[in-house]
């Protein structure tokens, strides 16, 4: 019997995921948008039509703008710093340590840097909230032992808490770019480096002229996925600071969560979540379009 060529039958294979997507993503997303037009406390409470009321309230809500300002700090901690350190570490591990001390040492160091990436966030959050604790945290115990009498309150000081959270995020994130960039470097043609070496280019020169341009596709992937991740950061904030002190570490996802489950302002929470989704889609779309363009011009 020859293979069936009916055009309808391929859709049979897509049916499960289309049903799943509709039930788990599409309908909930649309319902969430509908919620955002109501004032609703959740559960059996009555729905009251608000129109765009939640949206106008949101745009004049100081906490909301604060949360987006903090998202920029999240991008610095999750995208900018790890990508820059990651590219350098990857190049050093792959071309310098790997070639001069052997690939086993390089592989061991890579695994070490990657370890926080496989950790449940609940565990990572606990470790850091304890390490950074003002009273019996390891950092402050260490500082006191070397004679600092008044060590900082890492998570309790509104001027400092955001930076403490960022420190933890850098630690958490760094392994991701390192591993991806090492994989990327292994696909670069070694002849390029040999030619550069013949031309008398030093390590640094080769790094800038060959390494960076060659791993551009991976660089883009890391920046895109990490940016989307940074805009969605939730668990580290919930576990480390709960948005405090004085709201200094609130991020959009945490602000939505607080409205949903602590303040029972479901309509308002849905509004935050909707705006957040639009921002994420827009940022991702701009980056994808920009990448297509630069690929074409390259």
């Amino acid at each position, binding site marked *: 019997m020859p*293979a069936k060529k009916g055009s309808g*039958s*391929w859709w049979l*294979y*897509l049916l*499960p*995921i289309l049903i*799943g997507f509709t039930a*788990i*993503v599409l309908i*909930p*997303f649309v*319902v*969430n948008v509908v*919620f955002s037009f109501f004032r609703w406390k*959740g559960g059996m409470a009555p729905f009251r039509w608000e129109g765009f009321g939640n949206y106008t309230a949101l745009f004049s809500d100081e906490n909301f703008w604060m949360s987006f300002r903090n998202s920029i700090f999240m991008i610095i901690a999750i995208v900018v710093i790890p990508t820059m350190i990651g590219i350098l*570490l990857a190049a*050093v*591990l792959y071309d*310098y340590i790997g070639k*001069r*001390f*052997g690939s086993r040492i390089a592989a061991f*160091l890579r695994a*070490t*840097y990657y*370890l926080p990436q*496989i*950790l*449940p966030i*609940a*565990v990572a*959050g606990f*470790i850091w909230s*304890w*390490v950074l604790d003002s009273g*019996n945290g390891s950092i402050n115990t*260490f500082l006191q032992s070397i004679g600092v009498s008044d060590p900082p309150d890492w998570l309790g000081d509104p001027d400092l808490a955001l930076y403490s959270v960022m420190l933890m995020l850098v*630690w958490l994130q*760094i392994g*991701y770019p390192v*591993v*991806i960039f090492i*994989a990327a470097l292994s696909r670069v043609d070694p002849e390029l480096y040999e030619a550069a070496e013949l031309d008398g280019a030093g390590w640094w020169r080769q790094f800038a002229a060959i390494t960076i341009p060659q791993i551009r596709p991976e660089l883009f*992937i890391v920046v895109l996925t990490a940016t*989307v991740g940074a*805009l969605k950061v*939730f*668990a580290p904030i919930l*576990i480390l600071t709960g948005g405090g002190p004085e709201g200094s570490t609130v991020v*959009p*996802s945490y602000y939505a969560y607080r409205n*949903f*489950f602590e303040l029972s302002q479901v309509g308002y*929470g849905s509004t935050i*979540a*909707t705006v957040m*989704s639009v921002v*994420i*889609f827009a940022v991702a779309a701009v980056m994808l379009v920009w990448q297509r363009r630069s690929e074409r011009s390259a």
Partner: protein
Amino acid sequence: MHALKKHTPMQWVVLGLCGLFAVLMLAPFLLLVLNAFKSGADYSSGGPIAWPKSFTLDAFRDYMSMVDFPRALWNSILISTVVAFAGTGLALISAYAIGIGRVKGSAVILAVLLLATMVPHEALIYPLFYGAQETGTFNTVWSVIIIFTVLQAAFGTYLLSSVMSTVPKELLDAAGIDGAGRWTILWKIILPVLRPTLAVLVVFFFIWTWNEFYIPVVLLADASSQTVPIALSTLRGQHSIDITTLNAGSLLSLLPTLVFFLIFQRTLSHGVTAGSIK
């Protein structure tokens, strides 16, 4: 050859710096291990960075008495295993229709699935919360299993479709001439060819699902359905708990992923490259 070559001081400095960075990365883990084996009294007198006076398993015993760890472990294993295999299977058949079948509108479907991987869970959680209650899956592992099977499969479909479009056409045509139907071609030809990529997806889906936080913390409120990470974070909210107990609990909670990571390290290091299309 390399081993015989003399290293310059500069090379040792670079290696030293990389090593120092590794120690800094590992420091939080080392502190965790150091304090998990202390007694509560030892911790309060010596502080977090002192060497333990004696090694004890008290903290582990305390944690096990407060949390039904075997239950949480079973829930996590059940959820992650089912999601890993079901998600990969679902991605495989969906990607087959897109990558090989090239159904009309493939590009649109892929774009939509890509959006599904980016959508913040906050924008889905409240309706999902009600959906789970309506269907009687709230507080059961099944709500989380169904949700993550679909979410992981959305990413998997995106990845596998591009891999499948590289399967040689001749291979499929030959099978078609031999009279194999679509379903047979999928199982007898595509599956074996893609086995390495599928293995990577299974491993990734397992770890990602194991570590998930937001949706499980909302949908699995009851202790009987909680996963390992959620059980730990719920306990932490209660103030009277010894730090050493939490250290022991954290260590227990990270061990399964660590063991899994060490077993599948090779698969993973290939996999992050594959995953990089994400």
